[in-house]
């Protein structure tokens, strides 16, 4: 009895998690009249309109948006991992002057509300001639990821035995080789967690690209989706087809993301 109550509870919550996706998918397969007349139903009342996906894809050059989102995400992830794993390594392995100050200065960045520095960031990027460019979009995203990445890499490298370092020194390895050949490969779980967080973060980021980009050639998928919303008033079927295109890579990578995320979360949280 108690067991079935448990399952009912878990199923109800699972349904609540799933329903928005069901509605998104169902609505994208409706005709636009059907979507407008029967928004309460997640199922199309006539034949499935698969053609909407192709229409939306071609209407707004979604292929280009897709590529832009991909470029931005990949460079952000690579940059974050490279730059902040080095910092984490230095914080974890060396004693040096000003260490605490530098560490907390970066962590404090976490607490500055993004929207506060948006204005000067925009002006800054414009002055550097980086407005409306990939670089202008990417650099602040990397910097914004600093606090959590530094925190995670520092804690992770601290858990790796120090004897490894000492024996590598005895073997004549220099500091950079030790980092690159020994410590970085051992940090794969931390790298995975950081990669996923930044993939989701940069893929969904809308505020910063919206401000720094105005050429449609550089639109990312979320910007494309917003543009679709403004250009096809109340066409829920088109909007939902666009929404599916936007989150498709996240859904495709889902099993992998889940595995890495749960691993990283357990590693990070249980230690604290």
């Amino acid at each position: 009895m108690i067991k079935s109550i448990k399952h009912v509870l878990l199923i109800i919550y699972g349904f609540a998690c799933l329903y928005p996706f069901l509605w998104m998918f169902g609505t994208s397969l409706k005709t636009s009249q059907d979507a407008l007349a029967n928004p309460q139903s997640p199922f199309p009342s006539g034949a499935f309109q698969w053609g909407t996906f192709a229409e939306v894809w071609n209407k707004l050059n979604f292929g280009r948006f897709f590529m832009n989102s991909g470029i931005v995400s990949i460079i952000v992830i690579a940059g974050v991992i490279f730059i902040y794993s080095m910092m984490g390594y230095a914080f974890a392995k060396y004693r040096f002057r000003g260490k605490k100050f530098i560490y907390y200065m970066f962590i404090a960045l976490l607490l500055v509300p993004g929207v506060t520095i948006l204005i000067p960031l925009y002006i800054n990027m414009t002055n550097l001639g980086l407005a409306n460019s990939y670089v202008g979009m990417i650099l602040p995203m990397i910097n914004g990821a600093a606090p959590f990445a530094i925190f995670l890499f520092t804690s992770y490298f601290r858990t790796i035995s120090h004897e490894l370092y000492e024996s590598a020194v005895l073997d004549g390895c220099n500091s950079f080789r030790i980092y690159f050949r020994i410590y970085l490969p051992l940090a794969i779980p931390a790298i995975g967690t950081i990669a996923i967080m930044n993939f989701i973060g940069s893929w969904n980021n809308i505020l910063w690209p919206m401000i720094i980009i105005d050429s449609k050639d550089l639109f990312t998928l979320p910007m494309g989706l917003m543009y679709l919303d403004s250009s096809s008033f109340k066409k829920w079927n088109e909007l939902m087809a666009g929404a599916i295109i936007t989150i498709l890579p996240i859904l495709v990578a889902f099993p992998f993301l889940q595995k890495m995320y749960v691993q990283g979360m357990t590693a990070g949280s249980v230690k604290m």
Partner: protein
Amino acid sequence: MVTAKKKWVPYLFLLPGILLFLAIGVYSVGFSVILSFYNWSGIDFSNARFEGLSNFKDFLLGDSPVVSRNFYYALLHNFELAFFQVIIVIPVALVLAFVLQNTKMAGFYRTLYFLPMIASGIAVFYVWKGLFEPTGVLNSLFATLGLDFLVVPEGMLGNSSTSLIGIIITSIWGGLPGTLLLYYAGLTAVDPTLYEAASVDGASKATMIRKITWPLLKPMTLIAVIQMVNGAFQTFENVFIMTGGGPAGSTEVIGTLVYRTAFIDNDYGLASAIGWTSFLVTGLIAIFSIRGFKADI
């Protein structure tokens, strides 16, 4: 930990990050603090007028009643978002995590619950907008269940007395899974021999929960609360997509207020001042966050 023979070695590892931080972080933060004392509508900074504290007086002390009213309402909405999210998510997540712990299909459920966590973003905010439509899913669900008093004819987001509830619902939907999975990870990490030993010693179930389970879940609760409160004060995207802050400012939060003041009204000075004031408010929360991030360095 070692002291490098060549003193510059650790700094070399820090260099790329620090350069980026100086070029982007420090410059922007510094400039935005300065801006908050100026009246400036953009383009050329030589047009800016130094005005001392007048931006702050405008919205804090009510020198400009409209701005002031918008500011306090926005701040209140941020608080409401944080408050309701925490008091609903924590107990529900805890109960679900306990229930999930000993079920056979835990893996299957976990996969389902993981979906909102990674996919909650702009695409899903449009879905919610659709679900909240006047003839949308929520209204027809309530009507079918006979809960007519819950039906909002204009749609939940279209009525200024219910719109914030709609925003809170979406935040909970996106935020609950993270906390739930965090608790679940914590519960399954407890060494079962601890419970066995306790029951051999004659401890009651309640004692075990109080003495074994809770001490482990406490730090996780702290992390979850900090994350939610921080997130609530940084709210922007869901409000921006779903309501744009309306109707009649009923869902305006600090994020959307700063955005509108800066990029629609072109009042960069005022926007910076509002942003920094909200930063001071969140500063209190920030101090707690730093505690959570205290690494052993």
